[in-house]
């Protein structure tokens, strides 16, 4: 019985890089900066591969949207153990979460996965929207911020997900097909073996365009300016409680 898992992944500025804002305030400097797979997406890929190793999933398909450089990231997931990679070539268009969700919906219609696992958010825009929007467009159940995913091998048509929420842990059961977004503590992603890294370089990727998928990627959202937070200024020492209260009132903090 076939069980396909689709894992959307995003290529972002590496989490360890000290970011700088471009001089023209149009965004963060990405020229010559180290890029990597979004850490939450690595966790998603790892979870999908573990489902395959448990004998529940039979195929893991990784997909990424963006310029040609995305293909490196897709190959990274193949090196970890994904079976197939799809690249949606959006060129240099800025793809907002809604556009990504629309593209993913078309891919879901094509690929017919039983499960879509995403990272909960990308570390560059911190939107935390794509998974939820995709669930809305597909009218599928969703479980976000997953810290545990359980599928019963003998009846793989539903999934139990433990979510990390403000109040603690919530466990949901969903009928498949469904959407899961991953949080930090779900798993620790594996390192890719050197042999697999070499093999993934030769893997054939399927390349599509938004036009071929019939999706208009314009979401009527324009970034006007990106700025650094204001530089930290020095503080002021005060010597009595009254002076503290006066200062707090002066700076409109109370």
């Amino acid at each position, binding site marked *: 019985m076939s069980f396909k898992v689709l894992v959307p992944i995003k290529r972002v500025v590496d*989490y360890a890089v000290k970011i700088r804002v471009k001089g023209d305030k149009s965004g963060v400097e990405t020229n010559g900066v180290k890029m990597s797979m979004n850490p939450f997406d690595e966790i998603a890929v790892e979870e999908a591969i573990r489902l395959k190793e448990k004998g529940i999933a039979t195929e893991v398909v990784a997909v990424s949207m963006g310029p040609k450089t995305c293909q490196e990231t897709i190959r990274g997931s193949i090196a970890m153990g994904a079976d197939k990679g799809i690249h949606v070539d959006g060129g240099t268009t800025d793809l907002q979460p809604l556009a990504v969700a629309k593209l993913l919906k078309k891919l879901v219609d094509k690929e017919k996965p039983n499960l879509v696992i995403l990272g909960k958010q990308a570390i560059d825009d911190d939107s935390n929207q794509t998974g939820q929007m995709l669930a809305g467009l597909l009218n599928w159940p969703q479980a976000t911020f997953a810290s545990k995913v359980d599928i019963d091998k003998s009846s793989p048509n539903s999934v139990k997900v433990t979510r990390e929420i403000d109040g603690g842990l919530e466990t949901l059961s969903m009928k498949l097909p469904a959407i899961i977004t991953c949080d930090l503590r779900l798993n620790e992603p594996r390192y*890719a*073996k050197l042999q697999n890294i070499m093999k993934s370089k030769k893997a054939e990727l399927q390349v599509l365009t938004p036009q071929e998928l019939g999706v208009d990627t314009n979401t009527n959202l324009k970034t006007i300016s990106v700025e650094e937070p204001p530089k930290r200024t020095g503080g002021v020492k005060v010597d009595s409680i009254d002076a503290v209260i006066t200062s707090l009132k002066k700076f409109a903090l109370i």
Partner: protein
Amino acid sequence: MLNRIIKSTVNLSYKNKSLFQNSLVLQKRTFFNIVPDPSIGLTEDQKALQSAAVEFASEQLAPNAAKWDKEEIFPRDAMKKAAELGFGGLYVHSDYGGTQLSRMDTSLIIEALASADVSTAAYISIHNMCAGLIDKYGNADQKKKYLPKLVTMEHCASYCLTEPGAGSDAASLSTKAVRDGDHYILNGSKAFISGGGDAEIYLIMCRTGKEGPKGISCILVEKDTPGLSFGKKEEKLGWNTQPTRAVILEDCRVPVANLIGVEGQGFSIAMNALNGGRINIAAASLGGAQSALIFARDHVKDRKQFQQTLSNFQAIQFKLADMATQLYAARSMLRQAAALLDDPTVNNPHTYVAMAKLFTCDTCFKICDESLQLHGGYGYLKDYPVERFLRDTRVHRILEGSDAVMRILTSKDLLKDQ
């Protein structure tokens, strides 16, 4: 002063955000974005291998290296993890689970691992030298029997050439192997054996024939063979994450099936293995020097004296520039020598390897030494990692062919008649 507080706050917040227990975020991002960049001139495939090794090294080796050095721990679990990724059989054929990389690509991996822990990277290099030797010269039975466990580093290997009376003059070794039916009986002792006492597989160069190199053979001895014993664990200046012991053979009976290659081939097997080993030992020095350079650069941008950071003084700037220049030269030379070893049309790669090993190991030690100096008093403390890099890279100038032997090889080639 405020700068330093904010800087350390920023560093700490990176530590808290650090996702996979990576407490050395700084080291991870500066292996590549400092001059000389070790990824310059590499193909995309090579860059991918190098990145994978750097990531593994900074997450799995760097956090523990100081502890392993101090407590003299042989980190077999970490090395097994490395082997899972393919680091245990770097140039072994993929039929036996090896990664089948070229000498050039292997040197990139060792250099990357050494940027976190020179001593452990050097042992991994020695282990690979032994596995590679069995892969190249062993017969099918031997390869099937020994390689799978060596490739996963479930078994570790030791290379036994040096003796108390035979170091640079390796061909004068006197450990004897006398044929007795379908066994050899080995008698003698080996000195300074890396992994000795802990490794499961010992490749012993011993004398089966007459004097000189042509009388030497390579025989594999397994650890619990009766007649094989070990000296005390040596206390060393560095390389403390690998045990070093004498290997003692007293009427040790070993099946003839354990002969690697043919009788009399041992010396050429040993020297060929050493060529690859020399590349990797030098690569380990490069990795260590890269880290030392990064530490020095970060320190002089941080440390203030005479109301300014040390990096404002031209003498310091010029010292760093010289260190970077020497490192770039050594790296370029070493990588070319590695590529020559891979090139079957070159018939004297050993001379180039000798020149590269000599220059690289000496230069990288000097870089580590300069880096320690730039740290001032702090460089002398074990709280700072630079002293460990100095101690570990010191021995690379001595073993796997001392500086003198490298010069002998080079001058011999220069002076010979065609």
